[in-house]
């Protein structure tokens, strides 16, 4: 069995090596046919796959199975199994609130994802233009936002927007607007807007960092070529940056969609899905059925439905992924 070549001699990249060439010219495309080479991908993947199938696969299967069971507190503690077929699903789907909650969740997710991705991209592009100390300042400020524990960030936001003592109302009053005692949480939509702002604020840093990593990976000779032809900033963006960045951009958008759809803690801590259920989203519903009312079977059904909806939303991305050959996406 031929091992994969490693040359430990300090071979500078550009000079030709006197050592006998055993590496295949042209790189990875032509498979050498050795058993090890054939096995290598599977070996590299094995730990990850085992980890995922075991630690995530089992619980997920368990959730699906639970969605067909009646699992309240008593059954859970006693380890009882009571099958109820699709009763949990019919209960959830026939509740008129369910559709209202689903629409709200989708709209909320769309708004949050769009805002964070666009702003994240703009910041990433901006970061290229900055002098290093300013760039580090920006990165540190974003990092601190990203890392703030949820208990602190939700509380600070609630204080800032507080009716009576919030600094925002105080600032607006100082500027002459009549915002004394104004409540920012009087409707579900208003509440979700503030929560959305919080989430966007904590989501942008990751997007900015990732997209920046992509932006600086764009070879500068491409930019030079565009510059020679006299292209404007916007044209350069469209011609050079966008095509290079597109796969990464689509990937982080997809990830954002998954995460923002599943957001729970911030919504709950703010107003517990209120006022009057006005800011309740699917994850909140899942919590209400599950931990709150201990109807774990119903909660499991909600989870399965959530994943189904998520799959629907991302189906076009998923299909494109399956179609590409060389994994350009």
């Amino acid at each position, binding site marked *: 069995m031929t091992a994969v070549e*490693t040359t430990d001699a300090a*071979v500078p*990249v550009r000079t030709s090596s006197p*050592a006998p060439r055993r*590496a295949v010219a*042209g*790189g*990875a495309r032509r498979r050498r046919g050795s058993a090890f080479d054939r096995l290598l*991908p599977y070996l*590299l*993947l094995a*730990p*990850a*796959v085992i*980890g*995922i199938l075991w630690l*995530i696969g*089992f619980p*997920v299967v*368990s*959730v699906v199975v639970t969605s067909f069971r009646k699992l309240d507190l008593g059954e*859970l503690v006693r380890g009882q199994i009571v099958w109820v077929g699709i009763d949990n699903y019919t209960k959830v789907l026939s509740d008129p609130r369910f559709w209202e909650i689903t629409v709200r969740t989708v709209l909320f997710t769309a708004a949050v994802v769009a805002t964070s991705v666009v702003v994240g991209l703009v910041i990433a592009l*901006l970061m290229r*233009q900055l*002098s290093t100390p*300013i760039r580090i*300042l920006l*990165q540190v400020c*974003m990092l601190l936002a*990203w*890392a*703030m*524990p*949820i*208990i*602190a*960030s939700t*509380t600070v936001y609630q204080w*800032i927007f507080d009716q009576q003592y919030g600094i925002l109302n*105080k600032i607006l009053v*100082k500027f002459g607007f009549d915002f004394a005692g104004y409540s920012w949480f009087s409707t579900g939509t208003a509440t979700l807007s503030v929560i959305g702002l919080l989430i966007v*604020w904590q989501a*942008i840093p990751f997007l900015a*960092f*990732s997209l920046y990593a992509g932006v*600086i*990976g764009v*070879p500068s000779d491409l930019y030079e070529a565009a510059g020679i032809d006299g292209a404007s900033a916007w044209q350069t963006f469209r011609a050079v940056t966008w095509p290079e960045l597109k796969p*990464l951009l689509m990937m*982080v958008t997809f*990830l954002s969609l998954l995460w923002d759809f*599943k957001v729970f803690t911030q919504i709950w801590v703010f107003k517990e899905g209120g006022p009057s259920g006005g800011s309740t989203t699917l994850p909140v519903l*899942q*919590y209400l059925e599950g931990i709150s009312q201990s109807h774990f079977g119903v909660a*499991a059904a909600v989870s399965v439905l*959530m*994943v189904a909806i998520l*799959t629907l939303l991302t189906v076009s991305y998923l299909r494109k992924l*399956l179609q590409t050959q060389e*994994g350009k996406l």
Partner: protein
Amino acid sequence: MNAKKVSANVVAVLIAAFFAFPTYWMVTTALKPKKDLLSSDFDLIPSSVTNSNFVTAWTKPGFLQSLGNSLFVSLSAVVAALVIGLLAALALSRMRFRGRKGFVMLMLVAQMAPFEALLIPMFLMMRDLGLYEQLSSLILIYFAVTLPFCAWTLRGFVNGIPIELEEAAMVDGCGRWGAFRRVTLPLLGPGLVATSVFAFITAWNEFLFAKVMVRAEDKETLPVWLSGFQSAFGTDWGGAMAASALFTVPVLVFFLIVQRKMVTGVTAGAVKG
């Protein structure tokens, strides 16, 4: 410095200020004496400061212990997820083999599961493994949750590095592994930064599972310890904010270390011409 750069820098500073404001608010609250917490006055800048909240937070029992627990759990999970994720990412990105699409889909689908929904099944699993009440259960859980993300994201970053660079290196006599180490890995730097920071923060800030999986006080992680400021007797907000500020410091340190080591890879971009 031309006008474009100056205006870019100014805009950046404004954006940084927007991001920093809530953090600023957290820190000033931590510095305010208790009676100034709820004031009708315009208190953008605190009128008086005190370090008593920081002292409370620092001396509150369990701080150093839970800090240690959090570091242990988070670093272990992150290192495992990064390494294993990177290996998987390389396979998925650079190699052609049967079933590749299936594995790609697996990484993707694994990220769709709603985390909170897995609480009870994962608890039952850990219980049956005998790991309930052990910190290692948390390591496994955080590893599981961040692994698909790491594999998936790193795959995206590896895709972004043209394979021609590796091939060029191999033409010059580097083996596959050498090409990877010298060319790809450095260029992957910023991507590794983003991914590792994400994984670290996810583990560092996680509350629900940390609360449920361990019962003994000496096994608490920081988020659980932090929730102790909210007792049945009201919340000590000054203390909680001070503690939150202290809480964020290790993340900042992690980022700065990782950033410094990884960014050197960017200069290797000179290779790209």
